């Protein structure tokens, strides 16, 4: 029983400390230079830039 409680506690700690799946998918922009690089790498395709806030 003690082992089960210990395992549950460890899992709980791991889940609490892990970053959410959502936030881990959102990379940070490396400044306007990254946008410029993406833009120029996409030549040959129409490109749409969206400037958005999350709420």
């Amino acid at each position, binding site marked *: 029983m003690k082992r089960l409680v210990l395992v549950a506690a460890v899992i709980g700690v791991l889940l609490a400390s892990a970053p*959410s799946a*959502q*936030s881990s*998918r*959102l*990379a*940070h*922009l490396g*400044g*306007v230079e*990254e*946008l*410029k690089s*993406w*833009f*120029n790498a*996409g*030549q*040959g*395709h*129409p*490109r*749409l*830039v*969206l*400037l*958005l*806030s*999350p*709420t």
Partner: protein
Amino acid sequence: MAGARWAQRELLEKNPKADVRVFAIWFRMYPGDAESKWPGQLLTDARVEHRWDEPKSAGRWFLTRLTSLRPSRGGDGTFPQQADALWDCYLMFDRNAVWNDTPSGILSWGYTVMRTLEAWGAMIENDTRAYYTAGGRVWVLDLEPAAGKKKRIEPKR
């Protein structure tokens, strides 16, 4: 968020083969905004790349250079907000656009995304062609893959 939802449902899902690339840049504008509130479930199309821009570098950059974006044939091209960054906006570029000092080939931009891009998107005919009106003429935006293509934009006949 309404703009992101609209882009996913009306622009991307309804035009799954449209050869468009999307870069969605998210940043704080309202007091409650935070990276943790990013609605990752709204804009999930594989053609979209997302970034969080904490210093609002992209929005600030575009806000100070709005008058140098040429040519702009559609959209409302106005940003009535008194803000420190261009936001809730879209900027649509032709497939030949190149960014040197500033990006060339802008087709249209507008605020808000929902209001102005919806108007633009309503003119998408299918996966390969879209139409928009500017300067008293109807223009064709070619959304087909670029291989072997020469003409990019041509007046509609």
